[in-house]
């Protein structure tokens, strides 16, 4: 165990303290700092740190200030402080007093320009666009929503698409990252990723091309004969069993009893049926019923 590790036990970790004690410690610390360097925003515990997809903005984005001294100004995010949940904007600067013993080289005044920390709840995401005439205009998003994701080559990672809530046809693209992401010690090169080193094997995909079968097997083999010999055919087909006497008698009887179906009715029957139908049809007066019966009569046996 290193000395640094042990030292950490005796250091004050604000994030481990409850909120009321945390503020007290901050107050105590402020007693010994210069009045302009007083820290007014509370420090957040680590669990409450927000990522760029949670806040909805990142460094390089435009924001609109809604509260405080600089209300109504639009500025670019210079840095986001996750510990304080605050923003340093590029144009919002305040003067701070520095004692002479802490002056840096080429400093000639007690007052220096220092970026002002602005709480995150007093800014809204803004975006710049051009209208049809080519004039610049800004939009301010009350809230942002994320939909879908895409691979951003500038950030070298997958990012969600950002839209203005309730106006979801307006997309606010992510800004260019302030610094290009650099490859670390453990990162893999882009080209190496696309190198195929392993292949999924399945029974449904044969390991060899299907055309290789003809090369492995002889298509003209004598064992591949299409016509069976008589012996082979006899072995493959079961023999027809001879009928018993009872079966033969039954079949003969059945053949005798089967009489041929007449194909036409006798004249007498035809006349009888025709007369009955004629009497019935002649008595019908309803034209709709007549039309219905005519339709039924279309499907008849023609002689």
């Amino acid at each position, binding site marked *: 165990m290193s000395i640094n590790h042990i030292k950490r036990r005796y250091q004050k970790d604000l994030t481990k303290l409850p909120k009321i004690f945390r503020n007290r410690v901050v107050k105590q610390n402020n007693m010994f700092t210069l009045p302009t360097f007083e820290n007014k925003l509370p420090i957040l515990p680590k669990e409450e740190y927000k990522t760029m997809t949670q806040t909805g903005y990142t460094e390089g984005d435009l924001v609109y200030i809604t509260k405080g001294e600089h209300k109504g100004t639009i500025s670019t995010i210079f840095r986001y402080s996750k510990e304080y949940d605050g923003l340093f904007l590029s144009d919002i600067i305040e003067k701070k007093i520095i004692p002479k013993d802490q002056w840096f080289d080429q400093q000639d005044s007690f007052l220096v320009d220092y970026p002002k920390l602005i709480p995150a709840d007093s800014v809204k995401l803004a975006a710049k666009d051009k209208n049809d005439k080519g004039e610049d205009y800004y939009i301010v998003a009350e809230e942002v929503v994320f939909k879908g994701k895409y691979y951003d080559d500038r950030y070298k990672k997958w990012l969600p698409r950002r839209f203005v809530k309730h106006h979801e046809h307006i997309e606010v693209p992510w800004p260019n990252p302030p610094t290009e992401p650099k490859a670390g010690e453990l990162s893999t090169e882009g080209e190496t990723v696309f190198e195929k080193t392993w292949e999924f094997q399945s029974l449904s995909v044969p390991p060899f091309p299907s055309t290789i079968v003809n090369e492995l097997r002889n298509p003209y083999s004598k064992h591949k004969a299409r016509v069976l010999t008589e012996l082979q055919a006899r072995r493959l087909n079961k023999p027809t069993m001879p009928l018993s006497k009872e079966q033969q008698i039954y079949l003969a009887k059945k053949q005798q009893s089967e009489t041929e179906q007449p194909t036409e009715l006798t004249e007498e029957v035809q006349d009888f049926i*025709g007369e009955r*139908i004629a009497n019935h049809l002649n008595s019908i007066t309803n034209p709709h019923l007549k039309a219905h*019966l005519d339709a039924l*009569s279309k*499907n*008849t*046996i023609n002689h």
Partner: protein
Amino acid sequence: MSLTTKEAFAKLPAKLHRFFLKYPPRPFKAYSEKPSTIDDPSMNPFLPNKNPVTGRWQEPKYSLRRSSDLFKLSYKFGISDLIPPLPKKFYQDKYDNKNFMRGMLRFKKHKWERTMEDRVEARTKAIKEMDDIIVKQRPEYKKIIKKRRASQRTWW
């Protein structure tokens, strides 16, 4: 325009025509109204029939649906009485000759409801003949009756 018999016969639908080829119309061939055997010449194709050799019942040659179709078609052409008798009733006949359930025609009621009329009759009769019944069991009751009659108020 009146139709001739030949013209009218030409209007016979194929379905009925084919049926009559297998089973000639009624007056030319008799069909039994009850299930019979399959070798019976008057066997009805719309009813189940018995195989006398095996002793098993055969399903009707025509199902209820097919036989109903044949009846309805023949009814439209006025020859519904020519096909063999069906085990089903149709149209108005179905409502005129309906076999109602016994419970629908006469309700059973509770036992006290069923016997009430007789019991009331017996009771009224017993009240009417009360004196005679008592006298039969107790002869000295005659005196009481006599006394009562004597004390009875009259208009005079």
